[in-house]
């Protein structure tokens, strides 16, 4: 192969390599637990925070679409705020991963809430022989 093609090829390869490397390191989002985040929070850095949604911490305001809750790993809890409804699999006492940034005001601003769905087991439900009552009623204070 002619040397100029080899050189050209090498240049392209290096350029692409750099583009990829820079892209990955800049946009990689770091997964942290609440304890890890509280130990060394960096404002403006993208994180994925994983833990359990603390019971009693969930506040939802339908008028302003403000969702607030705390994510805990048993040792530390981090206050989180999100604009908009949470995904269906989300709730108190359940595992969740939120993606967003730590703010200087002292809370985690979540842009994305991810909830996990396990294949291995199933949720409690009204027994099959007793048909579910008016569904809207059963949504009140679910046994979470």
């Amino acid at each position, binding site marked *: *192969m*002619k040397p100029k*093609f080899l050189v*050209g*090829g090498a240049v*392209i390869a290096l350029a*692409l390599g750099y*583009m*990829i490397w820079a*892209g*990955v390191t*800049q*946009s*990689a*989002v*770091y*997964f*942290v637990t609440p304890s890890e985040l509280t130990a060394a929070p960096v404002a403006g850095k993208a994180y*994925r925070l994983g833990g359990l949604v603390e019971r009693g911490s969930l506040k*939802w305001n*339908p*008028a302003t*679409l403000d969702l607030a809750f705390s994510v805990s790993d048993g040792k530390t809890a981090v206050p989180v705020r999100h*604009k*908009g*409804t949470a995904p*269906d*699999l*989300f*709730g108190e006492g359940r595992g969740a991963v939120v*993606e967003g940034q730590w703010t200087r005001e002292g809370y985690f601003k979540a842009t994305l809430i991810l909830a996990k*769905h396990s*294949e*291995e087991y*199933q*949720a409690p*439900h*009204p027994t*099959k022989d007793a*048909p*579910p009552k*008016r*569904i*809207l*009623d059963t*949504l*009140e204070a679910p046994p979470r």
Partner: protein
Amino acid sequence: MIPEIGTGVLLVALALAVYGAVVAAVGGRRGRPALVQSAQHAALGVFALLTAALLLLIYAFLTFDFSVRYVASNTNLGTPFYYRITAVWGALEGSIVLWAWMLGLYTLIVVLRHRTTARELYPWVLAVMLGVLAFFVLVMTVPAPVFTRMAPVPADGRGLNPLLEDSGMITHPVALYLGFTGFTVPFAFAIAALVTGRVGDFWITTTRRWTIVAWYFLSLGLLIGGWWSYHVLGWGGYWAWDPVENAAFMPWLTATALLHSVMVQERRRMLRLWNLALVVLTFSLTLFGTFLTRSGVIASVHAFTQGTIGVFFLGFLAVVVLVALALIAWRWDVLGAQGELDSVISRESAFLLNNVMLVAATFTVFFGTVFPLLAEAVRGEKVSVGAPFFNQVNVPLFLSLIFLMGVGPLIAWRRASLENLKRNFLGPVIVGVAAAALFRLLGVGSVLVAGSLALTLFVAACIAVDLFRAVRARRAMGERALPALGGLLLRHNRRYGGFVVHLAVLVVAVGVTGSQTWSVHTETTLKQGEQAELAGYRIRFEGLRESQESNHGKVTGTFTVLNGKAAGTVLEPAKKFYPQEQSPIAYVDYRLGLIDDIYLVLGDFARDGTSVTVKIQVNRMVSWIWLGGVVLTLGTLLSVLPERRKAA
């Protein structure tokens, strides 16, 4: 009963497949046609047994045979009829059955088509196909047994994952698997070529149609997957760079590269080694894809459960990659190119660049997908790599590819003269630049968006130039325009089929650009009778109602679009409550349009049904993506037509 019969059938199939693979290889090595015949019969037997196993499974689903653990886990007495059939491939074990069955079908077709035409390669092709089949049947019997008995037999099953109760569920896996498994055939031919040393053009020209068909089904599977995501999952998007999506995208990228580099090998006898490597890479990536989805190694929204199956797949992948690469290394000397690259400004060069971009994109996607693994192995950090990275690196690559799509078909082989460049490209370049200027003047989007759209126009102009000239030449000979066009398409169906496929890509590109740039969304809480406004549409919340379906309860919100072209449309997004699920599943309602899709997702609602929080999206140009799929189908059909005798 069924569990035992089914397991028996699979065990016999496994034995036959192993027997056939070994005997075919020996027959090929020793030149013994009788052995190859025997292997052929074994292949037919395997296909028959796999068909029996699949039918048995379908039967078990249709008759609610909960003694089969897989049936009990994936269906219940309330599952509607057609979903009972599609549930067969709705979870891990069944998906392997479908994959293996398709592989068996393809093996049958290979037997019927190539047993007389590919004399030398045939035994090895058969051996490889049967070997791969043997592996998948092994998976069906050991780590992911599909016919396990459930004792005691439950009175009712668990039910299908509600997200899978959708028309996409019927078609998406089928198309995708037809694509994935299809690449086994070119791979088998490649291995046969390496083993026998016949690394000339025969193996690749024979498998050209296979590659196109497999590529088409993979493309279709990806598009349907995007459609499924769009209309079921409720986020209004069609591609998330999820590891499982990436796993299906990577072989598509390398297969696209292969479709192009084949032409360079045919014309100039170059890139023979490259093509072999591409085929091996494509097949390996399909295996990597199934490994990724089933091993639990990388977290994904789609992933099936973990287990020992990952080890099996990784082991097989390792064997395939190492053996194939070793064969290439062994035959290295014979694989030298017989042609040379004359100039950078040439069609060969365009194809080469096309391949470089596609392989670069593949590497990008691969790297982004496994980077979390790498980061944890090396630095112990848990990271995730999301859409921003993939978009950032891939968008320039894809734009370059679109540019090449315009240039490639028109530029001359070997060395393009300035005259040639001017003749072909002056018009399209003017069109492109003018369009870009016009878009900017009209305030259309950013420089990038205007540039992308202008680029698609440039390519469309290139295609038009070629078509126009060819028709004009025929007309000069006395033919009228329309028959000239028809004759052109049929005579040179490969070329024009390719053009139509390129057009399809342009349509999809416009759809992607438009939807990413101009879609808008909002979320708001409405009381009964209140309206929301987005993008000029006014949407009123009428009320909430609940109902009981065969296997789920449902709360539906009714909304009316009050103005514009869509005035009077009633949209009914809902939340479905399945007893076996942890929480409700959102059911999206939408109105599709050529330019605007109106898309509603129900969020939270008050118990008394008087107020509701709803997500409203107006997604733009998304329908172009699905239309592109239709054009793609037409282009592919044209390409695979049997070749007429060409004029010189």
